[in-house]
């Protein structure tokens, strides 16, 4: 019991502590690819610390939804992150929710964020909310199907069971084609859900293109800090999902200080690698027009559907 609580707390602290670093790493990678020095890796921490200490300006038109949303978003994202195996394959809270729960918990946060975007009455917020709704609507089916394709091999939709069983397989995945298709689909979903290029550009505040940034335009001070932190955690959550579902090697499959320390180190290395990849993609591609995003996300859906069909064809 004590160990379970301890592992949960450690996981929460790890997610909270590492997530701003991942953002810093992506920014650094992009800067280096643009032949700039770029700010240090720790810049997101400084930014957040400063934001926490700043005054909050709230709109007179807004309601308690505006105040509550940062805390709701923070709490739903962190709860979702506690259901995902990070450094140990069987997380203590795994019985509280499976992958569908993770998807719907994140949707709860998105729901409140959409409301907050509308709350201040500004057209920018409404625009961001409206666009976020369509992007969320198109990603979710692809996400559910791609996870299901992986879950079929493991015979479960519980993340811990999927990761644990895949980690215990010696010599790799049994059917590579469905896994690769599902991986590609989930990667596209990750880019869309976390608001990265080519779906959304986190570095822009241009009204023609912004989605996520438009929704949170009215936020300042500690509210903004909490929202930024939650977005960083969401990104880390998705990177963790990808690395641990498709390449769970190195994750601790049993409790023990040595294995768990190794698990943390391997997880950190894997997510940093994926973050560098995202930095590379952001440097290589331009943001898609909003109505071209549909095709991109449709591709993810088709890929995940093919993963399921391939699974059944290969199994006969």
């Amino acid at each position, binding site marked *: 019991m004590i160990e379970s609580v301890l592992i949960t707390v450690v996981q929460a602290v790890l997610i909270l502590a590492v997530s701003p670093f991942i953002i810093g790493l992506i920014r650094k990678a992009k800067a280096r690819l643009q032949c700039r020095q770029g700010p240090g890796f720790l810049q997101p921490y400084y930014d957040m610390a400063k934001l*926490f*200490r700043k*005054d*909050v*300006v*709230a*709109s*007179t*038109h*807004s*309601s308690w*939804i505006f105040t509550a949303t940062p*805390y*709701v978003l*923070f*709490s739903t994202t*962190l*709860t979702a992150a506690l259901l995902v195996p990070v450094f140990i394959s069987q997380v203590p*809270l*795994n*019985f*509280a*929710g*499976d992958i*569908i*729960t993770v998807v*719907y*918990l994140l*949707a*709860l946060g*998105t*729901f409140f964020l959409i*409301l907050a975007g*509308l*709350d*201040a*009455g*500004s*057209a920018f917020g*409404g625009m961001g*909310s409206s666009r976020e*709704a*369509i992007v*969320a*609507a198109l990603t*979710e*089916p692809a996400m*559910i*199907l791609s996870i*299901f394709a992986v879950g079929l091999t493991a015979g*479960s*939709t*519980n993340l811990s*069971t999927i990761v644990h069983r895949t980690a215990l397989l010696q010599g790799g995945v049994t059917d590579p084609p469905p896994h690769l298709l599902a991986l590609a689909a989930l990667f596209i979903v990750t880019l869309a859900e976390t608001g990265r290029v080519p779906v959304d550009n986190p570095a822009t505040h241009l009204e023609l293109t912004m989605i996520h940034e438009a929704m949170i335009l009215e936020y300042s001070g*500690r509210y903004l*800090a*909490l929202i930024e932190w939650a977005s960083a955690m969401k990104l880390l959550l998705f990177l963790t999902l990808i690395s641990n579902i498709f390449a769970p090697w190195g994750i601790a499959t049993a409790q023990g200080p040595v294995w768990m320390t190794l698990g943390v180190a391997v997880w950190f290395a894997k997510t940093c690698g994926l973050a560098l990849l995202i930095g590379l993609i952001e440097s290589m591609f331009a943001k898609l027009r909003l*109505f071209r995003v549909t095709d991109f996300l449709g591709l993810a859906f088709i890929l995940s*559907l093919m993963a399921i069909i391939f699974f*059944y064809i290969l199994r006969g």
Partner: protein
Amino acid sequence: MVALHGAGILLPIAFYNNPHFQNLSSHVAAMAASAAGVILGVAGLLAPMPVIFSMPSNLPLLSFQLRVDPLASFFILIISLAGWAVSQFAMGYVREFEGRHSIGVLGGLYNAFLLSMMLVVLADDGLFFLIVWEVMSLVSYFLVVTEHEKPETRYAGFFYLIMSHIGTAFIIVTYLVFYQQSGSFSFESFRHPAAPFPEGMRTLAFAAALIGFGTKGGIIPLHVWLPYAHPAAPSHISALMSGVMIKTAIYGLIRVYFDFMGGTAPWEWGFAVLAIGAVSALLGVMYALMEHDLKSLLAYHSVENVGIILMGLGAGMIFQSYGLPTLAALGLLAGLYHTINHAMFKALLFLSAGSLFQATHTRNMEEYGGLIRKMPWTAFFFLVGAVSISALPPSNGFVSEWLTFQSLFLSFQIPDVLMKIMLPIGAAMLALTGVLAMACFAKAFGISFLAMPRSVHAREAQEVTMSMRIGMGTLALFCLVLGIAPMFVIPSIDRITVPYTGASIAGRVISENGLAITPGMEIGFASISTPLLAAVLAILIPAGLLTAAAVGGRIRKRYYKTWGCGIDLKPRMEYTATGFPQPIKQVFSMIYRPMVKLETEMMEESHYFAKRMRFETHIEPVFQKYLYDPVVSVLNRLADRLRVVQAGSLHLYLTYIFLTLLVLLLWVR
């Protein structure tokens, strides 16, 4: 129990003729009857054997027989729980009609409506069922046309009347097939016919039941009456019609398929139900997104949710056909769980819509806005309903939708590859439905309650009376309880499904410590624990607050108006209920076929300045245009032809009667 039940039925009728305190008496009587109904429902679910009440009748073929079995009790419970809260709400709500309409008639019909729904699920005789079913349809028609002075209400009522009679006609076909095979209208003989049915007759009976009950339930393409009838009726009536009455269709389908037919059928039947469910769910939510009449929006969401319920049922039927009783029980469990959930949150949402209508005198969301400050309670209850219907954890909608997802994913146990692939596609459609529902309620809540008031009505709105708030609060509480206490709900639903599937799954679905639920497979397959999720969420919100306080100290907050690019922000600059789903409309333009008309009138002096602009946009009502309009026009043309025989002369009619008599006499000779 018999006495209580008798009181539950007689009380509304006894008070019906009371001219004094019509409002109070009718709704207090309805509340008392509903309380009795709750007791009956719980008792019926716990009773070891079905209880049968018989009343003698001297009419041929007809017997007034009532049967309280777990399935009927479950629906009695749904009707009573919703009926109790709605009656509480109605006490405050109908005051608006005072002076304009007879409260006594409204209250009496309201009681008759509740009673007829109870009798529909209790009836144990085919003919008796049809009679009370027809009473239910007619009474609800009268309630829909309460505000009959408005032409659109009369049209809505007429439309509803026609559609429900088409539905009843198909149900009659089903029961006639059963009667022909078994020689009696008693449900007992339907269950155990003397000779096994020929396959063709069974298919006919099932297809007719699907169409007949589907019309009442609002499956696509038979859903067209819902977006007319629900907005036209007074809101507490729409809450009952949408939350409860359309559930009698689910009851009828389960009764016919699992009870009468024993649940054995080829997989195509289950697949048909699943496919209809998936299409209804997806198209229902898509049309809902485009509505800005709040009650039409909710009506389309009823189409969606009936679709989700049918997806659960359909999955259960498919599993039953392949001889997988535990999975069949899981599918049924998911469907029935969603049935009670939908009854609660849809009634809640319709009551909130009624409160908004009473406060603002409009149903158009474009004229709401900023109501969260004027009506904080209504806003909060609407938010609870919105979170529940969007299936966001830890609400009740999440539990039942999760069970539906799991029963669709467990399709990998079916030995047929086609089904193995089709059911996950159904799950993907369910996922899309879920997110679109979330988007739709983000729009409904955001446009109605947040930002600035968009009209004088919204600026002058006031919070509704206490009795209305209690009514909504009761339903919100039911939603929360159904969400975080599934371990108490599942065993009772299990009692319904055991006789039909032969498998008890409550022990497998609920984990040993009672905290988590799983789809009843091996350990570790998948599980959720809504109480735990609620606890973790509740712990982490203060954690966020504390972190912020620890790093930043005391909060210093300033208020300032929203930046409007240098000019004063006006309500006209806000995002509208039409603008919000615009990207969705564009992406799915294949389905919506939107029509946009823009007329610009230029100034005479210059062609660069517009004097007047007119913008019009609407989506194509595909089903009405391509399915209903041709039928209606053919019927109208036929009627025109037939007018020749109807000259209005009494002598001519007497001749017709004489001729008919002659032909009949010759025929029976």
